[in-house]
């Protein structure tokens, strides 16, 4: 089927509508996300960017009264198909949250948690996964001597990198990040931004951010959401330097939001 194109789409979103009860939170979203790119979702609070992010790993399923129309395709399959195993989907589509949320367990157990749940019992393999994931999250050097310490004793920035390592440990293809630096200080934020640049070699990253400078610094493409609509989606430089839509221009020049 696929021609010899250089890039492949990781996700294809077609006519996506989402309703919370009566209220429509996402309106006819159409978007393609290429493999191994960083896509930033920006927009004012309540514009639907986080809701959109959570449709991609079906985290919205847990909210009562949510209804979804349209299709989201990954690997030629609609992830909202009834046959889909949500747990398998979430293994492929990892997520990092706004506030660091490590389990009240040791650093090691946090990272090994996902592989264990998915059936990995071999101690040696787990050790390897933990080390590799912590290295990928640029945390290994800081914690390698205290893997048995409680994760809640780490600093906020370290906790967030631990959460990233925990997500990487189940070897997802796509990593969703919901304002991952909004609770962190500037130095930790810089570390995570650097990390995102590294991770892009292997993963497709979709990141919600409130911070337009951050979007400009780290993303290949940027999507601007407003009132549940995808207003504009383009290469990041182009969206910030030469937006097509007046509303995008108003937002990025700080006229509202």
């Amino acid at each position, binding site marked *: 089927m696929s021609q010899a194109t250089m890039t492949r789409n990781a996700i294809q979103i077609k006519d996506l509508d989402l309703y919370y009860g009566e209220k429509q939170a996402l309106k006819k979203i159409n978007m393609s996300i290429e493999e191994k790119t960083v896509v930033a979702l920006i927009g004012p609070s309540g514009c639907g960017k986080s809701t959109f992010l959570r449709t991609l790993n079906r985290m919205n399923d847990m909210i009562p009264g949510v209804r979804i129309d349209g299709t989201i395709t990954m690997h030629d399959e609609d992830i909202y198909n009834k046959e889909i195993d949500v747990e398998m989907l979430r293994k492929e589509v990892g997520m990092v949250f706004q506030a660091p949320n490590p389990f009240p367990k040791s650093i090691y157990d946090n990272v090994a*948690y996902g592989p264990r749940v998915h059936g990995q019992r071999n101690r040696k393999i787990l050790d390897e996964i933990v080390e590799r994931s912590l290295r990928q999250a640029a945390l290994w050097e800081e914690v390698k001597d205290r893997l048995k310490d409680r994760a809640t004793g780490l600093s906020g920035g370290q906790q967030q990198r631990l959460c990233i390592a925990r997500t990487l440990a189940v070897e997802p293809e796509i990593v969703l990040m919901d304002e991952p630096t909004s609770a962190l200080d500037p130095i930790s934020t810089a570390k995570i931004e650097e990390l995102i640049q590294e991770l892009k070699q292997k993963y497709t990253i979709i990141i919600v951010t409130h911070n337009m400078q951050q979007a400009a610094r780290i993303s290949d493409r940027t999507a601007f959401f407003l009132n549940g609509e995808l207003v504009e989606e383009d290469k990041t430089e182009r969206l910030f330097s030469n937006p097509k839509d007046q509303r995008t221009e108003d937002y990025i020049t700080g006229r509202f939001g």
Partner: protein
Amino acid sequence: MKNHSLGTAGRFRRSRSLGRTWENMIPKLLLACALISVFTTLGIIGTLISETTSFFSQVSFGEFFTETKWTALFHESQQHFGVWPLIAGTLLVTGIAAIVAVPIGLASAIYLSEYANPKVSKVLKPILEVLAGVPTIVYGFFALTFVTPLLRGLLPEMGVFNALSAGIVVGIMIIPLIASLSEDAMSAVPKNIREAAYAMGCTKFEVALKVVVPAALSGIIASFVLGLSRAIGETMIVTIAAGSTPQLTLDPTESVQTMTSFIVQAATGDNSFGSTAYGAIYAVGMTLFLFTLVMNLLAQYISRRFKEEY
């Protein structure tokens, strides 16, 4: 002084002196109320200690804690004061209660906290808590007239009074306590930790069992200990359903006597004040008090020592 006087009634003068006095008395009254329970506790401990001391001047410590026969209410020539049969009876009933209440209580808590939709748990939890308020004598008759006949249908050799029936019903009695306290502990686990697990591809049951329960473990264990300390102190159910045969046995089909049911039997009998049998009530009461005190301290220690920080 300034020239102009303050006039007849200065705006900020203390005019309502009666109200002021009353206001000053309130903390003292409240303190007095709080002290009532403190003094009561001290009084109870004092009485227990003094009566227990006088009991041990007649019966040796060694006999109390090493002998295996308890015949405190027999004629003086046949009296034995080895407390172990009563402790064994108490532990047997408590053990059976734990086997019933711990899994069911925990399962109920998991259901309420993780599975039930909020509307259902809003109805279920108060019902559970009402169950905790049923007088224990009602449970006692439930044991004797419902559970025991049922069990004897399965185990025909078993007597009317047995530890099994009492233990099961004591267990049923403490299920609401364990379920309610465990549910509180599990509900206190932050939502974002659950989300992290879901986002990694965990099923609901994996989230409940491998994230929420471990995170709430201190509260859950504290609820077990508190529940069991109530089982140890439970009186009416065992008095009615377990019989009054002090014997050193771990056979649940036997009739046993617990520490509490001995106290009931001795206190409602006609032991003369100051007799050794009368003193035995206090010695057993002291033992029971120490048991439940240790359990309660343990519960407090566990919930403090292993308090989770999220």
